[in-house]
């Protein structure tokens, strides 16, 4: 009964059992008193002031509807008076009929049911059904016959919420009783729902506080720990376990440095300030010398009576942040100090970052760019070679990576420089490009060195002809030198002869015949002595031969000088037959004793080329051919066959030797720098690699075919239309 007392505000039945038992008050009188009071209140419009209830759902049970009855159609009708009473409720009513005690039980479990109305059942049925209505179920109102005191008493005992006499005022009393019960029930039901909500929220907060990875502690004004969560206990374990732990002071639990900070802050923060304070970071030196870092948030609650502290150990995240900082600084240091230029280009083709090396190169010799590099288009600097886009643009367009691509860059000072450029797209974790990273180097110096190497190699190839040069110069020098000596002897003899003829001429004038005869004899004897006829004939011959020897030397020197000369900066139309022939002539002059040349020159159009570089290629191939013939070690002269032809859009030059040939193992390496099969000092190992790069620069290629013991064929193919004007890079 006590449970029922809690759920309704109607004083009737809550006091009723006491009245009955203690005061001997008659239920009959009590019910009548109540009915009278209700009508009086209604008349005073007290009840009507209440707000409408909406649809009221009432389960009605009438006699003859006991256990086992299940046929709804045969349910007995409600009394006319009951129906009239319900109609007076004012609010719409939904009537439900429970067919069985089980059905009633189910209906009562439905929280939307407002009331159960039992209309004049016999006592046993009534008591049974009331027991079906659970203690937490809707209120139940029992209608009993007028003055049936015993029945009403039974009803109250069985748990009925109220009773109504089926008397003269029934139609007026019933709606008032029902409304009162429904209102009370609804208020109770709502409270139960909000109680549940509060319980849920409390559970939620408790779970959060328990599970959150932040230590939480609540302090009273004296600094005593009132409450703490699991994380706080884990971070700062209680000194003394057991129930006393909860009443420790905070200062006893946490490191001194931390508590000092908290106390100090407490002074400066007014206790009543309930607004959220910013997080403070506290560093605490631990015993092992390790420093731990805590982040503290505080909040005063209950008007400053209590304080909540939230403490996080951020040592690890602080350490990670530091590491990240260090890594970032390292990366920045590297990027800013490497000699390679590095730029980052966004998808719009603008430079979004350039390291100092890149800025230096882009700016050129005039120094810093007045308006900086960032934000400028890469097209301002990077050349589009021919019609193709430059490597960075290609990378932006379709993600093509480049490695060491040689291209040109227009510096801010207006000078084109050759650069080696590598670039790759900046992809995120999903593989989407966000731009391009490009690294490049100024190749000017390297190109210059390459040119020097090329020139040195050219000289070295002449060096290999040194023996031949010496021989070819020494022979004429030898005979010119001897002839000069001889001719001065001739001149001495002739002077003696001329003196004799002078004297003869003199005495002839004097007219003494004897003297004249003697002088003439002297002349004749002298002529025989100096072998005058021979001297006269040979003097001229010696002169001619010497002058021819001098010519030979002059030619050799001219050939060598022509060959050693550097190229003009630009390509010039070159007659390759002439270039091949003049080079072959040098080789032939030097090597004629061992080699025969066969020439089969076709008609060639002139091509735009660096003729000196092309001649260097020919010289290399011819010297190699000659040396291959030499290394056979036989006496019969070798043959170098030269063939030129124009095939489709290419000029083809073949140099075919009958030398030793190239070993199969060596063949893949012959164009590699420093690869040589010649004895130390006989070759630089750069001849073919230099030739290869020269031909490549002309847009052509070198093919080789060889059989050991049968000789080798080198084929140089050059396109009629050379690559674009790459003057700066090609030099």
């Amino acid at each position: 009964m006590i449970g029922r007392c809690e759920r309704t505000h109607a004083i009737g039945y809550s006091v009723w059992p006491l009245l009955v038992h203690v005061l001997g008050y008659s239920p009959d009188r009590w019910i009548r008193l109540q009915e009278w009071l209700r009508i009086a209140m209604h008349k005073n419009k007290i009840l009507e002031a209440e707000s409408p209830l909406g649809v009221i759902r009432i389960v009605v049970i009438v006699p003859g509807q006991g256990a086992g009855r299940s046929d709804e159609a045969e349910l007995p009708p409600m009394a006319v008076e009951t129906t009239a009473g319900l109609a007076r409720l004012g609010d719409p009513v939904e009537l439900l009929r429970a067919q069985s005690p089980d059905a009633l039980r189910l209906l009562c479990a439905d929280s939307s049911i407002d009331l159960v109305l039992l209309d004049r059942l016999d006592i046993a049925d009534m008591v049974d059904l009331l027991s079906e209505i659970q203690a937490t179920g809707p209120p139940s109102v029992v209608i009993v016959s007028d003055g049936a005191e015993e029945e009403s008493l039974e009803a109250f005992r069985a748990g009925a919420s109220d009773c109504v006499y089926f008397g003269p005022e029934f139609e007026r009393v019933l709606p008032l009783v029902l409304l009162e019960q429904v209102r009370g029930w609804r208020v109770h039901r709502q409270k139960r729902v909000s109680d549940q909500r509060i319980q849920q929220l409390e559970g939620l907060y408790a779970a959060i506080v328990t599970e959150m990875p932040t230590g939480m502690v609540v302090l009273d004004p004296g600094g005593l720990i009132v409450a703490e969560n699991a994380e706080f206990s884990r971070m700062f374990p209680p000194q003394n376990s057991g129930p006393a732990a909860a009443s420790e002071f905070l200062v006893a639990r946490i490191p001194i440095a931390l508590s000092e900070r908290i106390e100090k802050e407490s002074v400066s923060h007014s206790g009543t300030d309930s607004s959220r304070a910013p997080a403070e970071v506290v560093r605490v030196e631990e015993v092992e010398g390790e420093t731990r870092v805590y982040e503290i948030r505080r909040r005063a609650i209950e008007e400053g009576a209590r304080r909540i502290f939230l403490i996080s150990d951020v040592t690890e995240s602080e350490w990670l942040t530091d590491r990240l900082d260090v890594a970032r600084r390292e990366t920045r240091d590297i990027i800013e100090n490497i000699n390679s230029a590095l730029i980052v280009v966004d998808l719009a083709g603008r430079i979004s970052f350039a390291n100092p090396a890149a800025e230096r190169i882009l700016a050129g010799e005039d120094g810093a760019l007045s308006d900086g590099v960032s934000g400028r288009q890469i097209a301002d600097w990077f050349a589009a070679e021919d019609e193709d886009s430059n490597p960075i643009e290609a990378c932006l367009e379709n993600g093509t990576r480049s490695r060491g691509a040689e291209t040109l860059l227009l510096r801010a000072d207006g000078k084109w420089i050759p650069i080696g450029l590598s670039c790759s797209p900046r992809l995120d974790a999903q593989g989407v490009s966000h731009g391009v990273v490009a690294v490049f180097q100024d190749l000017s110096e390297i190109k210059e060195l390459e040119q020097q190497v090329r020139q040195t190699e050219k000289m070295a190839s002449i060096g290999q002809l040194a023996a031949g040069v010496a021989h070819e110069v020494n022979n004429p020098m030898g005979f010119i030198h001897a002839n000069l000596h001889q001719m001065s002897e001739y001149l001495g003899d002739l002077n003696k002869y001329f003196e004799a003829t002078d004297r003869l001429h003199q005495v002839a004038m004097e007219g003494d015949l004897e003297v004249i005869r003697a002088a003439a004899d002297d002349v004749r004897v002298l002529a025989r002595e100096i072998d005058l006829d021979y001297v006269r004939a040979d003097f001229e011959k010696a002169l001619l031969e010497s002058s021819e020897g001098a010519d030979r030397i002059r030619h050799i020197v001219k050939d060598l000088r022509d060959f050693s000369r550097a190229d003009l900066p630009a390509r010039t139309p070159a007659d390759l037959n002439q270039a091949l022939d003049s080079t072959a002539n040098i080789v032939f002059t030097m090597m004629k004793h061992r080699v025969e040349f066969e020439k089969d020159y076709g008609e060639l159009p002139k091509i735009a080329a660096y003729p000196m570089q092309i001649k260097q290629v020919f010289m290399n191939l011819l010297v190699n051919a000659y040396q291959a013939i030499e290394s056979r070690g036989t006496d019969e002269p070798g043959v170098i066959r030269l063939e030129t032809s124009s095939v489709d859009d290419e000029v083809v030059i073949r140099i075919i030797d009958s030398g030793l040939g190239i070993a199969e193992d060596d063949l893949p390496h012959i164009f590699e720098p420093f690869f040589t099969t010649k004895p130390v000092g006989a070759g630089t190992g750069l001849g073919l690699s230099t030739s290869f790069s020269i031909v490549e620069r002309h847009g052509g290629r070198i093919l080789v075919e060889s059989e050991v013991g049968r000789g080798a064929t080198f084929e140089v193919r050059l396109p009629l239309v050379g690559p674009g004007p790459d003057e700066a890079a090609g030099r």
Partner: protein
Amino acid sequence: MVDEPVVLLVDDDPHVLSALRRGLRREKVTIQTARNAREALERLAEGTIALVISDYCMPGMSGVELLTMIRSDWPSTKRMLLSGWTDEIPAAELNAADLFGMLSKPWDDMELRTTLRRAVGLAND
């Protein structure tokens, strides 16, 4: 004249031969010339040669090879090498030819004559 020693000059360059002959025209020797090793061997086969002066660099057979061959076939014939590039010739080859003397181009006529006279056993003036 029949008693004069015969000196054979071998060089592929006729102007060299003619200059040598010019320088030796007053020597009491008979001069013969050959343009290459094959011709030289023909001359040797034809009659006694006191001295062969050969160029080194010649088509076919080198001067040293020729002189080495002469050493074995005509041991009494003296051998001299006249070359512009004597450094390049391996010492073993030179030893094999067992030379009486070596002259380098350009040569000095006086030196040539002196060496030649010693080789053929004539007194220097």
